[in-house]
């Protein structure tokens, strides 16, 4: 199971426009701990091509559809890049969907 699939199974809003076909960058996730990032196989050229276009790219960015769950990755923490920088208005908090 990929991180994208895992997110959807757990009602986490991670976009997946191309449904895991390596044709978009909407499932972009940031691996929060370098030691976990280093455990992952290097991205292919195809994944890097899509990462080029990702919003808020970092040094530990990956496509969620390309990170496959294994026991070795137990405990991995992934951050979803903030799409809007200025969401809160008068304390308004968007309802979780």
């Amino acid at each position, binding site marked *: 199971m990929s991180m994208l699939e895992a997110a959807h199974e757990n009602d986490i809003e991670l*976009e997946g*426009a*191309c*449904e895991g*076909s*390596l*044709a*978009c*960058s*909407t499932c972009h996730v940031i691996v929060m701990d370098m030691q976990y990032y280093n455990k992952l196989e290097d991205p292919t*050229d*195809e994944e*890097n*091509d*899509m990462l*080029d*276009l990702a*919003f808020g*790219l970092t040094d530990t960015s990956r496509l969620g559809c390309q990170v496959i769950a294994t026991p070795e990755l137990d405990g991995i923490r992934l951050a979803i890049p903030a*799409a*809007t920088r*200025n*969401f809160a*208005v*008068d*304390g*308004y908090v*968007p*309802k979780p*969907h």
Partner: protein
Amino acid sequence: MATLGAVTRFLRRFSALSINPLRVCIVGSGPAGFYTAEKVLKTQEAAQVDVIDRLPTPFGLVRSGVAPDHPETKIVVNQFSRVARHERCSFLGNITLGSAISLPELRELYHVVVLAYGAESDRTLGIPGEDLSGIHSAREFVWWYNGHPDYKNMDPDLINTHTAVILGQGNVALDVARILLRPTEELATTDIAEHALTALRRSSIRKVYLVGRRGPAQAACTAKELREILGIKDLHIHIQESDLLKSPADEEELKNNRIHRRVYELLSKAATTKASLPVGDHRELHFTFFRKPDRFLESEDRPGHVSRVHLEKTCLKGDESGKQIAVGTGEFEDLKCEMVLKSIGYKSVPVDGLPFDHRRGVVPNVRGRVISESSGDSAALEPGLYVCGWLKRGPTGIIGTNLQCAEETVSSISEDLEKGLLQPSAQKPGRDGLLQLLDDRNVRVVPFSGWERIDSEERRFGSLRNKPREKLASWDELLKACSD
């Protein structure tokens, strides 16, 4: 004591009983329109959302712009279809803003109108000879091979063309080059329009130039598309090594830009890969840098038709902001050709009642809120009128760029609603009012179920030809199919 926020949330939940839902009309059913619809549905519990389009088919450039050999890029229509089928959403096709209905009329019918109708025109070069036959915009060519009903009869002459010059080096330029150069048996199993496949099978084009004003460090295409075209079977790539020399300014630009760095590396590798000498029937792709078009020259044998592009050599100079721009050197050369495709940018089209910045080709806005055509003092806003997508930002970015764009516009709508600027308590006729008005005008609205019939027909025809779909490429066929 209840805060304003808490009271508003209570009222919104109360109105979820649908006594007076927020009525939203989104004009344009491409990515900008559908991402906006999705976010409105999520953030406003009782909102009724209508997505209208002038075509009977939804999805904008996902259907008519994405190349036929890029089917994975079209998968996003599954998500958009789910939005269209949401109980509080309706897709309504075959409605042209500015003819079937005016913008002021829409604003009377709905609390909120979001214009997301993109950019259906082109930037022009404004140089002599631009109206010679054989010169087209890439947008028209793309619509032609993708079966857009407005371009079925475009009939570009590929038989009497040996060399095509494409002006521009962005992804659209690479798309049209690739469609001209890819072996047609590879295109035959895509959803390319049949009239285009037929024409491409008879094409005499053997040489294609991709011409850019600046150098390889500034090329606007991205790595995936470049990698793909460099890998086309039996295609010889020509890149001059001397064009790859980098100035200190180039090095600085590349250091800070991953996209350009990877594109430069691909071009550099392609230039130094000395394949075997060109073989007879192999086609050629030339990346021509540091050239800007000065004029188009008319053919003597074919009056009214283009025969050459007169190009001026350029060099790069830094402008005030530090960006490198191309400056003419006064040296010229000609490229002989029989077809030119201008891929220099799309442009939006204004409608009556809509403030418009003609220089930039966008609707003036602040985070998606439309700014009034003011008399000069500080920006007054048009109440209840918003923009999203290319009409808001200009014609750049990919499908996914509209995600953030829609989020910004919808958060502006939410803020305005919270501040009481949108009169949510006013009764608006919404969808029922729109349908009544259009019915009075004999406009035939195509609902999503009508598109589903078209979709089903196209897939059925496609399966007979080993294609994912066979596009219905004329207005007549489309309108007939949605009612059967």
